């Protein structure tokens, strides 16, 4: 007995409601657009990470801000956040949005400023995006292994905007830097972002921060992640810039005619 395929509208109806919101491709990063001025390093070909592939302690940190007095729906908050995502970031840190915007499967480049004047070139993949939330996934070499979810919802008559990270430091170097002030810097980053988002809607409010250590154990089997450390690789790239310039100049040198 043969079975006829379902008509297109019935086939769509049989799919789970979340199908359209998840990235379609695998977890290997591919940069389709590198804007002028963006340093495109440590992204193409890298594997995406869950918190399970990281080295350090696993943390769930939640940053929330209530948009009291702003008559705005959660869907409008997320729409605005997606469209203006880089604008709410602290100065010195660049998020190069994909051409099509924050949409499932898109890869964005990040150029971040680190302690001691170091720079870090990495990226994120849009793992999931619907009308009320979107989630970014980090690649090998990023400071964290894991996900960050931006969402908005109604609570007790107000609209709340939230950023929640579920992460491990990717390797021992990042874990040490976390413990030596990096974790606080990360809190400051997202508190700044949420405050800037609230100000966009004309609201001044405090960010509430909750930190939960989900797993205090280090995963020593993942110490090898240091091979992909994007901070070290970006630094080496920058240090070798003069060498690359000389190399290019030598390759362009015209031949002498006799």
């Amino acid at each position, binding site marked *: 007995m043969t079975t006829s395929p379902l008509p297109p509208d019935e086939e769509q109806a049989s799919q*789970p409601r979340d199908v359209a919101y998840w990235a379609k491709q*695998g*977890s290997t990063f591919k940069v389709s657009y590198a804007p002028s001025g963006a340093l495109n390093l440590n992204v193409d070909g890298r594997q*995406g990470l869950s918190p399970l592939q990281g080295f350090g302690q696993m943390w769930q940190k939640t940053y929330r801000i209530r948009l009291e007095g702003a008559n705005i729906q959660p869907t409008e908050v997320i729409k605005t956040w997606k469209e203006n995502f880089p604008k709410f970031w602290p100065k010195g840190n660049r998020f190069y949005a994909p051409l099509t915007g924050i949409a499932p499967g898109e890869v964005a480049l990040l150029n971040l400023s680190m302690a001691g004047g170091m720079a870090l070139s990495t990226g994120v993949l849009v793992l999931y995006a619907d009308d009320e939330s979107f989630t970014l996934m980090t690649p090998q070499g990023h400071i964290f292994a894991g996900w960050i979810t931006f969402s908005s919802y109604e609570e007790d008559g107000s609209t709340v905007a939230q950023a929640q990270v579920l992460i491990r430091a990717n390797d021992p170097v990042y874990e040490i830097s976390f413990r030596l002030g990096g974790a606080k810097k990360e809190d400051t980053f997202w508190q700044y972002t949420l405050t800037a988002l609230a100000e966009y809607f004309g609201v001044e409010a405090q960010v509430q921060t909750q930190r939960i250590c989900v797993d205090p154990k280090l995963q020593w089997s993942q110490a090898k992640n240091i091979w992909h450390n994007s901070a070290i690789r970006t630094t080496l790239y920058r240090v070798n810039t003069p060498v690359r310039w000389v190399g290019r100049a030598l390759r362009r040198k015209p031949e002498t005619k006799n």
Partner: protein
Amino acid sequence: MPQANVVMNVRKISNTVSIIDIKGDISAFAEDTLMEAYAEASTPTTRTIILNFGELEYMNSSGIGLLVTLLIRANRQKQRLLAFGLSEHYKHIFELTRLNEAIGIYDSEEDVLALTQKS
């Protein structure tokens, strides 16, 4: 606050194996229901918790995050987490998020129970 649109039923297969049947949506709102189901499924002798996703209707990225925290809780109790009943779409999600590297995925309840009997 929206209610969790999920129902979870616990079946204790043996002293060492429990199954959590999931019906509905897994999102952030399912946290309490999932953790209560885990608490019921987990006994001092439980070594394997099996998640039945056969009637899963919706899962967002917050839902995947819940599975990660559930996995950590189970591992802390020296329990392994297995799963069956995932549709092709949700198998893709498990691969995309690399959860499949930590949660064993099987096609049917028979397959996963056969594994637990071998070990």
